[in-house]
């Protein structure tokens, strides 16, 4: 890949904030501004702003769009109420995961209804091609548009997110419950607000026109800086999602992994449905012998990293897919796939030739305290 990394509309803003930029899925993205731990703690204790414009945004219009999506996603779309967001998977005929996505049904201020899919940056081209290959005249009135480049996506995450965002939008944010969203006008500009995120905290994701992104960021910081709002990069995004037990495509998820192994059975609805991969998934659902995703906590301070073997009784029973040093728990944590014989056994992770004792734990590692 010698191609120049794409720049989001916030690229200059990141550089001005002192970000360290890295190439990620074809995009030049901020990995950190100050320190991963500082940014992580800002999101857990106050709030953080993330540029997530690299994520793919696909818009589906047409009266048959819902029916088409219902045929290609693992969860039901035709009964998705207006304003509701649903986590779903895209699977291939073998039941392997092509992507994990968010689908929502939204309405423009002028009353036009459409579906929005947010897909992983690294999977965007693949998913667009996949949907194009599946779309036939029999699907009827369906129009897919890749809106990634014309728009920007900004996440504000953390307990102070509501207090900060409410200063900028007229809509009553208390009416936007978790996994719902609306399209509003903010300062006469279109803005999609969903209560979603990838950090394990309360928060919102905003989709705005690319040319409005810098101004939106400036407004967020004008409203939130004194409340502890900080810019946060991909480094903190990774430690936050790991603590929250959320899988990341390319690590916990791939075409070689099916939803049941990944612990994502909740994101598959087979009841009376026929979608791409459904027949294979009906069989895979019964397979108890496949490796499964687990959480690991380690006692020492050495960090289990991707691909390190997980060992039980002297035998490798699987491998780490993501690992970090958890800033919140102050200990190393990891997600791994292990074969079923490892259940209940004494586990260890082979960290560069030395076995470090590990304990299998329920995911997530971190759950925010619920108010009310």
């Amino acid at each position, binding site marked *: 890949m010698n191609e120049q990394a794409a720049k989001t509309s916030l690229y200059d803003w990141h550089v001005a904030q002192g970000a360290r930029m890295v190439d990620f899925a074809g995009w030049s993205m901020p*990995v*950190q501004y100050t*320190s*991963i*731990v500082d940014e992580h703690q800002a999101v857990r204790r106050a709030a953080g702003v993330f540029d997530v414009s690299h994520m793919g945004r696909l818009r589906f219009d047409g009266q048959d769009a819902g029916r088409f999506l219902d045929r290609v996603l693992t969860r039901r779309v035709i009964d998705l109420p207006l304003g509701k967001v649903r986590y779903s998977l895209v699977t291939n005929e073998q039941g392997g995961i092509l992507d994990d996505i968010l689908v929502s049904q939204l309405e423009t201020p002028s009353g036009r209804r459409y579906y929005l899919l947010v897909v992983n940056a690294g999977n965007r081209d693949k998913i667009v091609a996949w949907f194009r290959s599946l779309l036939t005249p029999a699907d009827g009135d369906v129009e897919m548009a890749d809106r990634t480049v014309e728009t920007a996506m900004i996440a504000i995450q953390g307990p102070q997110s509501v207090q900060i965002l409410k200063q900028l939008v007229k809509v009553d944010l208390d009416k936007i419950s978790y996994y719902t969203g609306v399209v509003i006008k903010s300062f006469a500009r279109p803005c999609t607000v969903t209560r979603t995120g990838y950090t394990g905290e309360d928060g919102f994701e905003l989709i705005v026109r690319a040319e409005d992104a810098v101004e939106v960021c400036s407004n967020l910081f004008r409203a939130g800086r004194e409340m502890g709002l900080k810019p946060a990069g991909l*480094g903190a995004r990774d*430690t936050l999602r790991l603590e929250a037990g959320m899988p990341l495509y390319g690590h916990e998820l791939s075409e070689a992994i099916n939803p049941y192994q990944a612990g994502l059975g909740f994101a598959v609805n087979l009841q009376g449905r026929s979608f791409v991969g459904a027949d294979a998934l009906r069989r895979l659902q019964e397979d108890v012998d496949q490796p499964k995703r687990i959480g690991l906590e380690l006692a*020492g*301070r*050495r*960090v289990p*990293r991707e691909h390190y073997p997980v060992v039980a009784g002297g035998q490798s029973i699987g491998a780490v897919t993501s690992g*970090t*040093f958890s*800033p919140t728990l102050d200990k190393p944590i990891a997600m791994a796939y292990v074969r079923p014989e490892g259940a209940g056994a004494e586990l260890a992770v082979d960290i*560069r030739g030395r076995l470090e004792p590990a304990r299998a734990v329920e995911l997530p590692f971190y759950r925010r305290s619920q108010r009310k």
Partner: protein
Amino acid sequence: MKPEELLFSETHEWVRIEDADGVKVATIGISAFAVELLTDLVFMELPPVGKHVAAGEEFGEVESVKAVSPMYSPVDGEIIEVNRELPDQLEMLNQDPYGAGWIVKIRLTDETVLSKLMDFGAYQKQCAEAE
């Protein structure tokens, strides 16, 4: 200690040479630039005293939230002392990388390798080019 008085390796270790009764001892640490690059340090592994290392050989590792990095000996010799307090107070590497943040002391067995190390000016140039 000022960085201007030290020698540096391409892999971001610094070296201070002292003469103790005719024996040349190298104190080794990692540069402020490396510490800044790593950020969020969580762990350091030190070698046992008495271990012999060759120039370019890994003598320990330093781990941050993001990644683990080996530390390479810039000199040939025997490790005669390690900074045992350092792994429990890695913030010393941020506060005083060229003093209290020293990592190991090595009794030199071959002084010729010193000629391969850079002075601070040359090292800064290398760091500027890497950014």
